[in-house]
């Protein structure tokens, strides 16, 4: 299995696709930093979590870094997984690998793990780079709590990315054609990112409670809620912080780290279990599937 993971990682880090993703991530980080450069000047020093504001302040037009991250993490996840199995099947390499003395599940496990490693490296790099530049920009070092919150946020993005990757891998097992699996993943991403929360839920929800409940069926909502709680502990709105909402609404007694963790626990576990479900279905399907390319 180590052999396969190593090969997958080597593939990722030599592929143009991953290079483009890295580029995308750096551009987004740069834009996000610029946004916080614009936005952060309004904050009085010494109040609240200044360092975290690097990630959450938005500029006049440019959305905040977390908005960017919420946008591109699913794309990265999908890009890492959408052709994991079906490309090997159609190129005829799958039958060659599976005729070697390796367990069939090692192949899919290795792909998943290699994807998560790549994802983790990307996200950790982003957060470190932004923190580094941000530190020079604002000159205020992060507190221990801020570091812990950022670390939790990193874990959260990795889990979120892993969910989309798991979904994309599931489609790559399900559909023989690469275009089909890519389009299905993107369609689902659009659905949850836009149609579900903005059109469908408002249409069927009668009360605010059902509205909030239904919203939480979207992994995007889960991620955004958890992000808000982790990085904007002052924010008490039940829902999501969207770009442009003003800091003026914030309460002055922020959530403690423990409280934050307690609040995001359900979101985090839901995301993890969604990922696990996607992976489990891919796994079962893959284990029973015919491997011939036809």
């Amino acid at each position, binding site marked *: 299995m180590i052999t396969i993971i190593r090969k997958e990682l080597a593939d990722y880090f030599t592929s143009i696709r991953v290079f483009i993703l890295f580029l995308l991530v750096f551009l987004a980080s740069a834009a996000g930093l610029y946004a916080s450069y614009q936005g952060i000047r309004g904050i009085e020093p010494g109040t609240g979590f200044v360092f975290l504001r690097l990630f959450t302040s938005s500029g006049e037009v440019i959305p905040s870094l977390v908005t960017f991250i919420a946008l591109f993490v699913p794309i990265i996840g999908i890009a890492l997984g959408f052709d994991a199995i079906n490309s090997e099947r159609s190129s005829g*390499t799958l039958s060659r690998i599976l005729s070697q003395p*390796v367990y069939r599940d090692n192949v899919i496990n290795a792909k998943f793990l290699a994807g998560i490693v790549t994802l983790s490296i990307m996200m950790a790099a982003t957060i470190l780079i932004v923190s580094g530049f941000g530190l020079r920009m604002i000159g205020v070092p992060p507190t221990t709590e801020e570091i812990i919150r950022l670390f939790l946020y990193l874990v959260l993005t990795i889990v979120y990315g892993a969910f989309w990757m798991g979904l994309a891998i599931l489609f790559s097992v399900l559909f023989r054609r690469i275009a089909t699996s890519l389009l299905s993943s993107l369609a689902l991403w659009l659905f949850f990112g836009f149609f579900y929360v903005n059109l469908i839920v408002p249409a069927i929800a009668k009360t605010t409670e059902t509205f909030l409940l239904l919203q939480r069926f979207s992994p995007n909502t889960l991620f955004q809620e958890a992000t808000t709680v982790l990085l904007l502990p002052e924010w008490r709105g039940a829902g999501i912080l969207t770009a442009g909402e003003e800091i003026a609404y914030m309460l002055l007694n922020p959530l403690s780290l423990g409280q934050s963790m307690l609040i995001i626990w359900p979101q985090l576990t839901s995301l993890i279990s969604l990922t696990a479900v996607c992976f489990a279905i891919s796994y079962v399907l893959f284990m029973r599937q015919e491997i011939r390319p036809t």
Partner: protein
Amino acid sequence: MDGKIVIETKELTKNYDGVTVVDRLNLHIREKEIFGLLGPNGAGKTTTILMLLGLTEPASGSAWVFGYSPTREPLKVKRLAGYLPENVGFYNNLTARENLMFIAELNNISRAEANRRIGELLEIVGIGEVANLTVGKFSRGMKQRLGIADALIKNPKVAFLDEPTAGLDPEGINQTLDLIANLPQMGTTVVLSSHQLYQVQRVCHSIGILSKGKTVIEGSLDQLGREALAGGNYRIEVETAQPNPQLIDIVNKLPGVRKVEAEGNLLLINADSDLRAEIAKAVVQSNTPLIQMKIQEFSLDDIYMKYFKED
């Protein structure tokens, strides 16, 4: 060929969507022989190979490969079996050498040993000079050759080659067949599938002909020919300068001769065994000039046609 039977199937059956594509197959393959699975497209050759490798589950029946069951102990079978799939594919972004190295690593072959074998095999299959070229730049035929090297990298006890000559030019076909013919000397049993009669005939010791998932016939090539066409007899043709009625009598009385027919200058003799020596002696003793004598060789065409005429 009378090595012990190392691959065996018993009533092996596979269904796809309710259609039986391999139907109660019984095969017996001996050690260090080249066994040809022959049959038209869609006969179930690939499916049979996949079942023997444990890559697909049979619906019923059983198979044994060197004492292991591909269904229950697939890893043990895969450790000793090399496989060239139909439409073999490689990682296009890796070189030929890297592709083989990956497979070698999956088989826990040490790096030094793998490097040695890869160099050797790429030379043998005739693509040594492009070892460090990415496979994306390979032609179909080069990939096919790489596929054969790939199947042999683990020094397999048995190599399953699914249409090994597909996509090759005539020269490539010859080289590949020669290569395959040499495998038993290196201790490898070969199971190849093909619909190319003359290729199978050239290298195989035994064959099994499949049609619509059923074995039509199975056995060693020379034995099959006699059974199929001469009812189990040897057919010996004797050409003499002059037909001689006495000679027919004499030959007829030789022990083991079943039937003698005269056809112009030819005597067609059906016998239980190879009686050429005895017949030659009889001909010479009867003072008839002997021009030539041959024992009929059965071409696979004859066998194949006999069984597929009906279709």
